[in-house]
């Protein structure tokens, strides 16, 4: 059953005389509970696609149906509700609030999601329980990204969107973070979409989508993806 459906979605940037089609009439369906990897060169439109799906941005044309609801026409507040309830984000630059502790950064989702998961439990899962009272600046990059993952999961969303989550980390730390991200997503039964350059991850994906110049150039379903521990990082 598809959880996400893009129907003829375009995102056009108009700046002065130039217009740029960051996404060009994209059609796409994603199934629930799957692990989807999006690959593509820089500037291909990957982030644009993810941002549209996450309700951070609205398409210039086309429809984006998530769980049967068209999110392309929602108002600002409705989009905020959608983001609160349906999606969890993990970004390249962690995007934690520097003035809140680790625990508070995760706990802040309780302000908007009534059935958020218990903070301590989630922190335990990402292995940061002992750091719960520290501030982000006191943690390493990998640890910060784990806080960010905990925050995304704490909302208990249907879909997890990760835009180059290891982009700012060295490859070793990146691998640890990715492993964690995937095992958590599997354990909690999430649909997870990761934008990455890391070819290794693609081997584990249920679906690999390649994007170029705003268009989807290929879509591969992998019948037997490798498990997290089978991949050579």
């Amino acid at each position, binding site marked *: 059953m598809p959880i996400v459906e893009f129907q003829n979605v375009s995102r056009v940037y108009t700046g002065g005389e130039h217009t740029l089609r960051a996404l060009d009439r994209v059609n796409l369906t994603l199934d629930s509970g799957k692990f989807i990897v999006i690959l593509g060169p820089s500037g291909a439109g990957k982030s644009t696609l993810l941002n549209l799906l996450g309700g951070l941005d609205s398409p210039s044309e086309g429809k984006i149906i998530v769980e049967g609801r068209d999110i392309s026409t929602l108002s600002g507040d409705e989009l905020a509700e959608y*983001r609160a309830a349906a999606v969890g984000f993990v970004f390249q630059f962690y*995007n934690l*609030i520097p003035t809140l502790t680790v625990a508070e950064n995760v706990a802040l989702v309780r302000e908007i999601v009534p059935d958020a998961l218990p903070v301590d439990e989630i922190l335990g899962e990402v292995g940061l329980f002992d750091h719960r009272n520290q501030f982000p600046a006191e943690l390493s990059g990998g640890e910060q990204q784990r806080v960010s993952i905990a925050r995304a999961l704490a909302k208990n969303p249907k879909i997890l969107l990760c835009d180059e989550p290891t982009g700012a980390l060295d490859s070793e730390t990146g691998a640890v973070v990715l492993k964690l991200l995937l095992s958590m997503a599997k354990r909690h039964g999430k649909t997870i979409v990761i934008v990455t350059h890391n070819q290794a991850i693609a081997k584990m994906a249920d679906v690999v989508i390649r994007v170029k110049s705003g268009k989807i150039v290929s879509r591969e379903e992998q019948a037997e993806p490798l498990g997290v521990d089978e991949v050579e990082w």
Partner: protein
Amino acid sequence: MLRKKLWRTFLLYKAQFLSMILMIAIGIGIFVGFNMEWVSIEENTGSFFEETGFADYRLISEEGFSGEEQEKIRDSAGIDAAARYAVFDVDVAGFGDDALSLSVTEDASVSGFLVLAGEAYDDESDDGIWLSDRYAAANDIAVGDTLTLDYQRLRFSGEVKGLVKAGEHLICVRDETQLMPDYDTFGFAYISPAFYERAAGVPFYPQIHIRSALTKNQITDLADDVLGRTVMVLTKDEVLSYAEAKGEAKEGKAMGSILPVLFLLIAVLTMVTTMHRLTAKEKPQIGTMKALGLKDRRITRHYTSYAFLIGLLGVGAGLGLGYYIAWYIMHPEGSMGTYLDMPDWTLRLPLFCVVILAAAEIALTLIGYGSVRRMLAGNAADALRPYAPKKMKPLRAEKTKLWRRLGFGARWNLRDVSRHKSRTLMSLFGVVGCTMIIIAALGMSDTMDAFLDLYYDKATLYDTRINLADDADGAASEAIAGSYGGDTSAAVSARLEDKAVSLEIYDTPGNLVRFPDEDDHFQPLGDDGAYVCLRLSRAFDLSPGDTFTLRPYGGDDVYTLKVAGLIRSVSENIVITPAYAEKLGLSYDIHSVYTALAKEEIRDDSAIASVQSKQTIIDSFDTFIDIMNVMVYILIAAAVVLGVVVLYNLGVMSYTERYREMATLKVVGFKDKKIGRLLIGQNMWISFLGLVLGIPLGVYVLGVLLDALAGEYEMKLAVTAQTCFLTAGLIVGMSLLVSVLVARKNRKIDMVEALKAGE
């Protein structure tokens, strides 16, 4: 290339640049405006007194002075000029109850006047009247008209030769009981000694006016010596026009030197923070320029020139605003113009204001310079690194139980506040400053109201005051007092050490006049001592139980009085009862009768000189209140505008600094309104704290202000609950308005953009 960048940067930060310019303009404007006001009054009245030869001393004798005596005085050492002088109130025939204060001076260079229209003064003219131009205008009298002026049995018929203004009549009132000039019914005129002699036969001159640099004691000795008798000597400080003009300038100085300084402080301090933040934001650019090989000096010059330009525009606009404010408080068509009748209303920029203007420009440039130098410190690589706010450390408060109960919003705000201490302190300082100014300004008005209420509603319960004619005999006076069933009083001019004071005898069986003590309680007057007003008690260090001596003018008698109590009073006086007067051996000749009857019920009587309703006295106070209120309103309006600008500026700064955090919250799913509420919450807490600190500080400043005015008024500090609520309302409203303006920007947060870059 750098010049191009200058303008682009201006455009980029236009809100902040504009707010800095505005803040400086308001700070400078208020400071310069209020100080120009009093300096202009001081200098304009000063030069007017100078031009019209205002006398330094007046010798007064009821027996009059002979020409011979005047010559002896004039020829004494240390006397620049001396002239016999007469002044008396005359009725203007055909103009209802109108009266003029008619003056004659034997030497037009002593206590003379300026001719503004018509013929120059001619001291030989035996029918020329030089009339007050204001009175002439109010009564449609023109040069060439004839007037008939009556004084008892004398009649002066003559032609209006010129329209004049005189230093003697800068404040043209009948006597101390009239507070405000009313040119419809009362003016002044000068005639020549020749005219006086023609009409009066033998001219009677009860005064000699003297211009001299000698001290009062020297003049007194000199007069004793030359004349061989004791006469009353008045310094110019004891003459109403001079004293009041000086008082007005002093009042303006008090208003100008306390609150406006606060404005300047707020403006400059906020400028420091803003300038620092702006250069901090420019730090990567500064680093790039440095890396490109630009010399530190050029970069410094470039960034310092922003501060210089902002300063120049702010100081320039402030100077303009200052002129406007000064004009608004004192211009001939305003309340001040009703009060003072002088020819020159030029606004004068005092030297110290020029110094302040220059100092402000230099200080602002230095602030800019200092901020860039801080960003330039180290090598190019250091400079390139973006400016990072301090690392977050747990607050000490976090160990408390209370902290654990705080919501996420409160924690976020509290940590933000502690992370950006200087910004928070500036906001707090801005709110505290505005609160202080508004409380002090409104409190000034409250204090005035309370004083008037005390004086006119509680202390004086009569409706009408009847002033008896100087030549009314005792029996006639008693008859009037008896028939209107009132309280009575008399006043005697006397010398306390070297100061002329009014000794007033009050007989108040009807309790129509009462005297408030320092705590505003009304105690009946006792018969065992004198009641001294607060100003005199302060000036001569008199407290209950002390004794002092009074020398009534016109004789050599010396009386020793005991202080029985202190009273709050409008004028500088000493009050005693007839019984105490009798004990002292002073005679009591009733001069005024106070009655509960309305003015209309008082019948004409040759023994009655004038009848005043209390209401007219109260009404004439309104002009004073108006002058004060203009200042109060300007201060409040400026405080609110400055507050809004300061808070908006800091709000935008805070908004920019938290932009990424807010974008993150938005991504997570917070609605704009919810983020807005968090922002507004922080501002409201700062405002609340500011109010709590600012209200008592404002009351304190009001106390300082009243102390500075103590020589003018004997007012007791009053701040009503209404004032506190109004202030709180203004501050909260201002803060809410700013918060909402800033929070509205939430909608424009571009989540995608904000998340692109790392910290």
